[in-house]
């Protein structure tokens, strides 16, 4: 039951991501984005990042199988999308990386904006451990955006741990929604 919930929510998430990408891709002409070679390079850095993190940080070489098309497809986004994490993990899934590529493009196109990256957890886990985990998520996100060429001094981080769930329900779908990093423009 719960497992099915995870799978469903993951499928829903994937569908949402793809749908968003398709919608964006259709609505905008390719000319709307300048990202070509630079983004390809960015995407390559992305994959390297995954390996480094999997091997070095957690000791567990788990990584979700990425959709190469989604990763290398140039995207234009009108705002900063949040990304999601697996339970007790702060490595970036290929979906998260794809979203961050878009977010980095947005930030490069809006170079006057400063952004606070907020790390969050689901309610399972100890509150203090989750504050630390939320910070890890925010820092991993920050490091990644930096690797994609966003200036470090434009990015700050804060962790709210499990304090501010998007969905307060106690089920796998809610937990998956709550394990996230969000981006807030600092006025």
């Amino acid at each position, binding site marked *: 039951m719960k497992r099915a919930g995870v799978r469903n929510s993951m499928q829903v998430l994937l569908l949402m991501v793809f749908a968003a990408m398709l919608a964006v891709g259709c609505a905008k002409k390719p000319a709307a984005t300048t990202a070509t070679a630079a983004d390809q390079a960015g995407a390559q850095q992305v994959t390297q990042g995954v390996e480094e993190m999997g091997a070095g940080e957690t000791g567990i070489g788990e990584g979700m199988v990425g959709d190469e098309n989604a990763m290398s497809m140039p995207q234009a986004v009108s705002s900063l999308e949040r990304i999601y994490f697996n339970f007790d993990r702060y490595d970036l899934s290929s979906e998260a990386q794809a979203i961050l590529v878009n977010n980095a493009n947005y930030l490069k196109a809006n170079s006057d904006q400063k952004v606070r990256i907020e790390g969050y957890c689901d309610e399972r886990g100890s509150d203090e*451990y989750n504050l630390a985990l939320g910070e890890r998520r925010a820092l991993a996100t920050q490091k990644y955006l930096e690797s994609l060429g966003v200036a470090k001094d434009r990015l700050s981080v804060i962790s709210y741990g499990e304090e501010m769930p998007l969905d307060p329900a106690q089920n796998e779908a809610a937990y998956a929604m709550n394990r996230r990093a969000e981006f807030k423009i600092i006025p």
Partner: protein
Amino acid sequence: MRRFATLLFALLCLPATSVMAQIEVRAPGQQTIAVANTELLPLSGFPSPAIARELHEVMSYDLDMSGLFRQLDPASFLGDAKRLGLTSTQVDFNQWSLLGSEILIKGGYRMQGDRLLVEFRLFDVIHRQLLTGRSYSGYPGDVRTMAHKFADVILKSVTGKEGPFSSRIAYIDNRTGHKELYLMDTDGANSLRLTDHRSIVLNPDFSPNGREVIFTSYRPGNPDLYRKYLGTGQEARLSFKKGLNISARFKPDGREIALTQSESGNPELVLLGTDGSQRRRLTNHWGIDVDPSWSPAGDKLAFVSDRQGNPHIFVLDLLSGQTKRISNNGKYNATPAWSPDGDRIAFTRLEGNVFDIYTIRPDGTDERRLTFGPGNKEHPRWSPDGRFLVFSSDQDGGKGIYIMRADGTGMQRISATGGQSQHPAWSRQR
């Protein structure tokens, strides 16, 4: 609290009939002591049934909670229960022996102007003598505290170790729409909000003298460490490094504070002076290090780290610098709390999506599971005498504060409904 500071609790200088050893000390769950808990009678003036009833109810709750006593049915009491006799010569011990009572609580009260005077006596029915007595003077609003104080004295008289009932519990509650710091009695009465940060306040800890509470607050836009003086209400920000300033715990001597800071980019345990000065960094590891809990001697810290993969409980020896993992079962262990006696560490384990409370020896042996059944049980903290654990649980729906005996029996919700309550901490003194 300020008002109560004026309350006098003078030990009556009665003849030294210290016969403590004559009543056997028994552990909870074993044979219990038969106690006759009588309602106090008016010493003079008009009777006030409300005061007598409240004193009796609080005493009865504490005696039950201790697990040491079997209270006799007041309906079976004979004439002596209605007679004000505060010395052993005035008590008709035959009546109480007949009922099978081993110890007897009697006393009286009197209003003097707006002040309340209460006399409590504890008698040994078998040896027909006074065990101990106290007189308390305060305001009618202090009536619960007076009963809690004498319950503490009864535990001291019967077991040699004072009870914890007159101390207090700090906790976090969101009933205003924000998580704020609260204080309440050990039975949940007299709850009082202490902060008005309108942000997120988390994870309090009492100073050993009970006069200060430290906690983390997001009010400055970052999780920073605050200290609050309970007497004056005055607050100061103690630690405001970039990143986390969380899970702070006073050293048992009150001179230092261990907490987690992440200024280095990584959550590490750090030692602070009580003025907020940085003393030294205690851990240096890429893993997450949080939730320090001091050994009673202040020479070791239990904490949570994911340095070996999943979150587990470790013990750091501050003298040698050696770190040892003590939790070897489960995949997610958290929130260690070292017992006041030093012999056990309580912690929580996440298994099948539910947290339960366990204890283990500081060397990692003799793990015992204390809680079962539905709902999470989290954030265990010990009572100052080590008899009880306070924790938060969502077993009845919303999160509330619960207490239970150290063996896991006698679980009771103490916090009121209407808000989400969590992060309890038990003061060592009132």
